[in-house]
């Protein structure tokens, strides 16, 4: 299954990572007997409808999640989050890091019976960089100097500079050249009737209702056990939860309240397995560093001292998460386990603020400097209750050290255009999704502070800049790790964000589905091995 390798996305995509099944005491699972059998259907729910099943043109999570069953890339992440071959059998990187040579699997068939060759890879590359293609993914291949296909099973890619995230970018879905070459991809019927190399093929798409996929018998890793995947469009999350309880869907991501409070009864636990592991995302409070209020590092450290992250996790996530100390997921290879950052300590916060000149003068409990009160507004986006609660708890804590923080919730589109793009904010509470590759150039490099670029807080540190460039310029993982660990130390020292928490992903799956092995990559990494024992199959022909 190809996973779209987007390094950082603001939406909370649940790329399922980390692991653990949360079995309460007293619930017994039937033992696995015999070999897995084929059959049955798994029903999933989706909040939004897929827009196109040509992943190159899609920018929404719903489209990519369906396309993930249908297409493959050259490489993919395995369950331990290592890059392994997918459509590529193997690859080598030249010593200078400039040339990657992929050796393709032989005998892979497209779902229409045509053979997969290097021509498909070349086409995918060409159509992606074609200026006429309306895609958001052309950047993936911008660093590529040339792509050559010396024979049907070899692809040779040359770069101008060694570029570590490049390898992962070849995990994007390979498109069938024999169906698309010479045609206008935006008008292709493949958007509604895709042909891929993946474990599932499209059977039926009932607009606005459901998408049905069926097992592709000729899949190169073997036919998946589950006969069908049905993805129902259920736009309302409350409805989706009730569908889950009523058995209308088999799988869903729970909220902390649902996980902790509403699904603890034995009748639920007998029918569903719940899983829990850190999601690939974090929530932060970011400060506009152009604002004189936040340009002083002592003030930013004081703010972090004043915020009780544990309390946020308990209050907002009901304990279903862990504190964030930097822009990496705890446990991933780039993560630095030894970061020393300002811990919750209101007295230390007050002391630092006093050093920076903020003093309580007129008895109203608000700190002042030169007569001006310490006052700012934090912005967050509408429709995210967790972020609003986070803001409210922080507001309370800051008030107790003498800072008056106001909260403003803004609709997403105007949040971006009026506030973020124009740098018209003091502080924000937002989240980032984390990809598997640790490159953080777009969010932290000082060259990315322009309009619409993602270093919108205006962070600039020469050493961080150097380390980011060094980290993406080598394929040596140890060397990269050294760079990213040092970056985390600097960020912990400077606190341009107060990193708040990493929430847990809380998926639940019908207990009749077996073969789910939680791993650092989550639960869906070996979806083709999921199966249902014959006597428990629910949807039979």
């Amino acid at each position, binding site marked *: 299954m190809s996973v779209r390798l987007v390094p950082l996305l603001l939406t909370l995509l649940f790329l399922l990572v980390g692991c653990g099944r949360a079995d309460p005491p007293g619930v017994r699972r039937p033992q696995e007997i015999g070999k897995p059998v084929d059959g049955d259907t798994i029903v999933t729910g989706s909040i939004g409808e897929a827009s196109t099943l040509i992943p190159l*043109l899609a*920018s929404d999570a719903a489209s990519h999640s369906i396309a993930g069953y249908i297409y493959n890339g050259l490489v993919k992440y395995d369950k331990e989050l290592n890059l392994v071959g997918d459509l590529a059998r193997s690859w080598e990187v030249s010593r200078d890091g400039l040339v990657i040579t992929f050796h393709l699997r032989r005998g892979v068939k497209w779902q229409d019976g045509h053979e997969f060759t290097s021509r498909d890879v070349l086409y995918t590359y060409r159509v992606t960089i074609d200026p006429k293609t309306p895609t958001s*993914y052309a950047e993936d291949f*911008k660093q590529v100097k040339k792509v050559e296909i010396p024979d049907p099973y070899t692809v040779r890619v040359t770069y101008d500079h060694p570029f570590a995230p490049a390898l992962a970018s070849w995990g994007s879905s390979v498109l069938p050249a024999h169906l698309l070459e010479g045609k206008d991809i935006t008008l292709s019927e493949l958007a509604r009737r895709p042909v891929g190399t993946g474990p599932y093929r499209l059977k039926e798409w009932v607009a606005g209702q459901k998408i049905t996929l069926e097992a592709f018998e000729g899949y190169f890793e073997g036919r998946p056990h589950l006969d069908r995947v049905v993805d129902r469009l259920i736009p309302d999350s409350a409805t989706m939860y009730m569908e889950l309880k009523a058995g209308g869907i088999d799988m869903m991501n729970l909220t902390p309240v649902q996980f902790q409070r509403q699904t603890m009864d034995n009748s639920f636990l007998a029918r569903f397995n719940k899983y829990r592991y850190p999601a690939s995302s974090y929530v932060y409070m970011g400060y506009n560093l152009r604002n004189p209020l936040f340009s002083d590092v002592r003030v930013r450290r004081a703010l972090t001292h004043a915020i009780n992250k544990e309390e946020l996790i308990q209050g907002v996530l009901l304990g279903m998460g862990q504190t964030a100390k930097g822009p990496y997921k705890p446990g991933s290879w780039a993560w630095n386990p030894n970061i020393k950052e300002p811990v919750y300590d209101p007295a230390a916060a007050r002391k630092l603020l006093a050093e920076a000149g903020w003093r309580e003068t007129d008895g109203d409990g608000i700190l002042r400097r030169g007569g001006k009160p310490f006052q700012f507004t934090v912005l967050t986006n509408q429709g995210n209750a967790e972020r609003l609660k986070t803001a409210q708890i922080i507001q309370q804590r800051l008030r107790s050290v003498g800072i008056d923080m106001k909260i403003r919730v803004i609709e997403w589109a105007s949040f971006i255009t009026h506030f973020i793009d124009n740098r018209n904010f003091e502080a924000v509470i937002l989240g980032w999704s984390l990809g598997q590759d640790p490159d953080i150039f777009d969010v932290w490099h000082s060259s990315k502070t322009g309009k619409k670029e993602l270093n919108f807080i205006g962070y600039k540190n020469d050493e961080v800049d150097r380390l980011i460039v060094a980290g993406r310029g080598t394929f040596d993982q140890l060397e990269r790790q050294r760079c990213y660990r040092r970056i985390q130390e600097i960020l912990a020292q400077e606190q341009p964000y107060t990193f708040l928490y990493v929430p847990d992903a809380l998926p639940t799956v019908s207990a009749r589905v077996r073969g789910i092995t939680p791993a650092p990559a989550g639960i869906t990494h070996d979806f083709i091995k999921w199966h249902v024992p014959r006597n428990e199959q629910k949807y039979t022909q």
Partner: protein
Amino acid sequence: MVPYLLKRIAMLLPLLLGITLITFTVIHLAPGEPVEMQTAMSPKITAETRQRLRAYYGLDRPLHVQYGLWLRRIVRLDFGRSFAPDNRPVMDKIKERIPVTLSLNLIALLLEFGVALPIGILAAVRRNSLLDKGLTLFVFLGFAMPTFWLALLLMYFFGVKLEWLPISGLHSLGSNKLTAGAWFLDLAKHLLLPIGVATFGSLAGLSRYIRSTMLEVIGQDYITTARAKGLSERCVILKHALRNALLPVITLLGFSLPGLIGGSVIFETIFAIPGMGQLFFMGVMARDYPLVMGILVIGAGLTLVGNLLADLCYSLADPRIRHGGG
């Protein structure tokens, strides 16, 4: 009559043009562009990519040029292609959703009139009785209760607790393998809650309207005359009073014409019904200009036609208007 009709029809065109001009401007005033909604906060997007996407959708041209281009297409009844990544013709997207919305709304409208009419008449005839008060309470309850809340409660009760009814959608999985009878029963079960809740919520307006016109009519001299003639009360109410009381309802029916293709967003979202409301809502959220404009133009057209039809029917039904005006 004919010159009047022609005049009215001639008036429709500038009106429709004005409506499109205003809506076009307003949609473009909303912050965020289609490109923006697809690419905001994505590290993959450079200024160059963004520029390329804007040019692709024609968003880089001045607004009046965009409007002109849109207008030139629309007079040929070409609604253009959606800005969503699927790039499908707007008309296709609307067409696949209209049958669901239209049939649901028709059923709900029939039910609404079927239930509200007797309620209104009863309440008027037994004015200030316990029955009147009870009915008033009932319809206002439906009016005041947030539909999404009621819908969720009923879903939980009938779907999760009792397991009598399905929760959302239109068909069960595998319903295409059922016999025609079973298939229809399956559909009916799915529709019971949404249509029930929709009807309950809309009873108040119509029934109160009928009640008040009915009361007005009952006070008229000709009703006293009818009673004096010795007609049965049943005949007086249903024949003499009701006919006159129904006249204004024709206007209401005219107004509900555009409503027939415009679904309710909240409703369709909660019950996962693939109707026009959902399509429109998603279109607005994604700033899918051609889709939004397409739906609005159809809606505006139907509103205007509905008004015209209502006026015409009114003058047909009521001789006083026919002779007096026109």
